[in-house]
């Protein structure tokens, strides 16, 4: 493991982000628009006085958390796709760079993106709706960490899918995360799901994070057993995603696909 190589890839992406409008938009534009639309809607709903709990907080929390998950996923898959789109993959992999170093650099990129998104969304939510992200306290750390890891694992699977099926699969690949959304209890509790899906939901680290978030906003405490479950299931997904990634990488090398991906 060589830091200078991880660093090289990071700086390369920062060069691009620094001045690329579409990439900056990807980080800020959509999250901010979502936040505004849903924030105002929920403020309106609260004013029309439906139910007791703070809908604004729950929705805003859900939005911010969901974006963290999806930003993490995107950081990984887009970092890979950049090299595919630019036909640069071969140049990268004829250097001593290890695939693991590549993956770590994307995780760090994910942390940077998450920091930016949560900062901007957190500030907006505070000024527009007096929603304070920090009311979640120290639980924020394990929450964010789990979302980061889970998003990363999904992103790694997406890279594997693209190596397997080529870039024609990229739209499909980006859909993977929306497969996870309904069963992650993002906007509603796990109990709102039919029983079968509740079980699926319990196998996803994200569901523990979103449930935990709501619990804390409602003034309760997160159960450490739930956090533990989040970390445990996450570990399983990381292992599975890496197995899939390395399998697909080896396959691509056997079939000479690294040359042909575009």
């Amino acid at each position, binding site marked *: 493991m*060589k830091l*200078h*190589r991880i*660093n*090289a*890839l990071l*700086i*390369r992406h920062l*060069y*691009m982000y620094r001045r*690329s409008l579409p990439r900056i938009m990807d980080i800020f534009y959509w999250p901010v628009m979502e936040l505004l639309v849903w924030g105002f809607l929920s403020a309106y709903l609260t004013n029309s006085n439906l139910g007791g709990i703070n809908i604004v907080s729950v929705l805003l929390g859900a939005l911010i958390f969901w974006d963290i998950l999806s930003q993490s996923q995107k950081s990984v898959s887009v970092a890979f796709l*950049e*090299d595919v789109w*630019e*036909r*640069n993959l*071969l*140049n*990268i*992999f*004829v*250097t*001593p*760079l*290890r695939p693991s170093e590549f993956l770590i650099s994307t995780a760090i990129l994910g942390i940077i993106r998450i920091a930016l998104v949560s900062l901007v969304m957190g500030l907006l939510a505070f000024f527009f709706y007096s929603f304070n992200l920090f009311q979640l306290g120290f639980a924020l750390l394990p929450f964010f960490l789990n979302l980061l890891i889970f998003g990363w694992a999904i992103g790694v699977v997406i890279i594997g899918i693209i190596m397997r099926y080529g870039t024609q699969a990229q739209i499909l690949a980006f859909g993977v995360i929306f497969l996870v959304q309904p069963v992650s209890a993002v906007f509603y509790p796990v109990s709102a799901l039919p029983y079968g899906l509740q079980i699926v939901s319990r196998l996803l680290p994200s569901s523990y994070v979103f449930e935990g978030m709501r619990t804390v906003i409602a003034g309760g405490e997160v159960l450490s057993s739930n956090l533990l479950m989040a970390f445990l299931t996450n570990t399983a997904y990381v292992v599975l995603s890496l197995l899939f990634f390395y399998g697909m990488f*080896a396959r691509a*090398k*056997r*079939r*000479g696909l*690294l*040359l042909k991906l575009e």
Partner: protein
Amino acid sequence: MSAIIEVKNLRKEFGRAVAVDGISFGIEEGSITALLGPNGAGKTTTIQMLLDIITPTSGEIYLLGKLLRSHREEILAQVNFSSPYVSMPNNLTVWENLATFGRLYGVRNLKKKIYQLAEMFEISDLMKKWTSSLSTGQVTRLNLAKAFLNDPKVLLLDEATASLDPDIADKTRKLLSRMQKERGITILYTSHNMAEIEELCDRVIFLQKGRIVDDARPADMISKYGRKDLNEVFLHIARGDNESLNPNI
């Protein structure tokens, strides 16, 4: 004689198709060797296997005296590659691209190195330009500059000199030749420019349908087949008969 590249019974199948059919060769340190052969002969596949981008079906590859399979990282740090079928990110400037690869190779005194190479390949005034704005010839020079960033001991070039204008092509040949003489760098490369190969190479390995059909010094190959230049030798071997001497074709 020490072989810096040693290939033993190297074979690559893609499904049922055999791209490289059990070839063996050793390449002497400090030499320039051309892999010659018609399209589809297996040149690119061979070079990609030497870079561990394609996994061989069977056979062994030793680079710098070590088994590639188990010493990838160590070996690739001393090897580099250039080809027009690979490109550097268009959305970075020339300088940013060279800096990125310099960092990937862990180059010391990177700035100085980049400016030296830029001078050599005459891309100094392009440093701040977008890579997307470069002409084909400029991209080729950028790719070549990248290939020298880590002071490679072994340089693999796949049609890297295609699309250079005669002036730059000539300079590039002189540069490659100088690198070989001054630094003892070993070059294995493919090209369809026969005159270039004659001028530059100590040795030609002729591949056809994944097999080595001849292996000799360019001059020896020309006299052996009784032709006037390598171009005619190529046509002769590739067509497998005397068509190349038929003025009607």
